[in-house]
């Protein structure tokens, strides 16, 4: 019984890659980067940048989140399927936010 399990069809979805172990050095660097990001985002909020304030804040948050996903959550070392899964979540989230906002920003169109 065990022999027939050895040669899995590569198309059948079992991607048995060697588990990649991320070490303390990488975690340390990411941790430091996250701390720097936090300091930056606090600092940026005290600067007068007009409409750019929220943009910068979101941008820094996105970079921090990406670092966490890629390294702490090992997505950088995961299979394509996992990367696609994360992408699908992000995509649907953006549809929810984007398409809802499309109604709100266009409600006053043509009425000024």
């Amino acid at each position, binding site marked *: *019984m065990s022999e*027939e*399990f050895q*040669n*899995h*069809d590569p*198309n*059948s*979805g*079992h991607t048995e890659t060697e588990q990649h172990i991320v070490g303390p050095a990488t975690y340390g660097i990411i941790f430091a980067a996250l701390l720097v990001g936090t300091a930056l985002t606090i600092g940026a909020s005290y600067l007068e940048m007009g409409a750019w304030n929220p943009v910068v804040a979101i941008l820094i948050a996105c970079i921090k989140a990406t670092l966490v996903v890629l390294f702490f959550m090992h997505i950088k070392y995961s299979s394509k*399927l996992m990367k696609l899964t994360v992408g*699908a*979540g992000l995509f*649907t989230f953006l*549809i*929810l936010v984007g*398409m*809802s906002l*499309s*109604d*709100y920003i*266009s*409600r*006053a*169109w*043509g009425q000024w």
Partner: protein
Amino acid sequence: MSTIVSLPDQSTARVPKRNYLTNENGLLSWLLTGDHKRIAILYLISITFFFFIGGALAGVIRLELLTPQSDLMAADTYNKVFTMHGVVMIFLFLVPSVPATLGNFLIPIMIGAKDLAFPKINLLSWYLYLAGGAMTLAAMITGGVDTGWTFTTPMSTHFSNTNVITTGLAIFVAGFSSIFTGLNFIVTVHRMRAPGMTWFKLPLFVWAHYAASILMVLGTPVLAITLVLVVLERTIGIGVFDPTKGGDPILFQHLFWFYSHPAVYIMILPGMGVISEVISTFSRKRVFGYTAVAFSSVAIAVFGFFVWAHHMFIMGVSNYAVLVFSLLTMLVAVPSAIKIFNWAFTLYKGSITFETPMLYAFGFMGLFTIGGLTGVFLGTSGTDIHLTETYFIVAHFHFVMVGGMLMAFLSGIHFWWPKMTGRMYPEKISQLAAVVTFIGFNFTFFPQFLLGMLGMPRRYAAYPAEFQVLNVFSTAGASILGVGYLLPMIYLVWSLKYGAIAGANPWQATGLEWQIQSPPLTENFTTIPVVTQDVYDYEWLERQKEHEVTHVG
């Protein structure tokens, strides 16, 4: 009439002694089971229970609407009845109907696995479903809800003094049951396929469930948080949807329909999967345009997320949003039409036989087409303004959900009944039931299209006398429809003891589920199969039959 049914010799055949039903005994062996097939049976029993509760409520609605006055019950009681009908039917019947029963039973077998990826989570999802169901019943008994199944704010947050909180939390809990089912299916299809079972050898039933599962996983949580916000608004008075505090009630509808529009695809896609299997089997042909049908399921799932605001055209969304969502809505018609056309081409020059599952499948094709095309009327913003909030809407979604989904559910139940129980249902009376259902359905819901065109609004207990004739038609049809649903209930139970022994493959169908004994073993396969055959390869089956004449069950 010719038939493809081939049963083993009834004088010698026996239902296999060792199978998933007899493997273990006692109530606990069921309540603590991890076997996907047993969980499917548990689901089947519980959703049938809720279907008949929802059905009884529908009967009460039709009785009230027999006369123009609101004489059977007060208007606010009527509000509660139609709300509970909607809540029970949608969240406790339609959403779990095919996936939790047939999907649960068949997906692991169809892909050559021993079980779903997470058997315990599968069992948990049934308990969550039961908890949600019990909470809904509790809400119903202690006074009901009158908001309509859509819980529209500010009605649900401020003006309703009924059990919105209990019902909202019930749906929250039932929603997680559906999330876990979907999650389990996606992981199973990705990770548990047998060697050789490539994506394009998967039965279309599996593809359809895969697509529906994506919607369950990504859509349901938005409903969950929305209901949490409604509950918080009712309890502690936060101000997210409350216009007096600066909230926007329309935001509720955006969030609600972000789930509830994809939810109609959660309901219909698994039904489409059933129809693909049935049409192929009873035409003895590979499904025409297999790849197109497979991808159309995924396309419906993806497009499903882009169209939700077409439920809100008259609710105060911007004109530009109306335009965009109206156009995007037309996109969904394309993959739906791809499916209908491909099923029609599958029938073309096929060796068609008319067993009960096929009769229901024909019912599905006709009624779903009408339901889908009237959906185009409603997605077009101009006609929608006239037709929305009338009986046209009611007729449209009942054509899709009852005429489409319920027909598909009954088709699937009859088709796989021999696999699930090892016994055949009685063919003649079930054919009769299928015809009665079809006739009753059309009598019930076709008049409602006319009522809607004439302008009869939905959700009212009373109506002008000029609408009475069509309403009497509708109520009369509902009683026929009721008979059509009671019949299978009776003869299917009867067949558990007295039905003919089915054998492994009564339909001479392809697919892994027909290659194992009926009812299957707990572990499904004694050895994991290695798949070399193409899907729906009926020519291969013909050749096979020449060599092997008898089937031993």
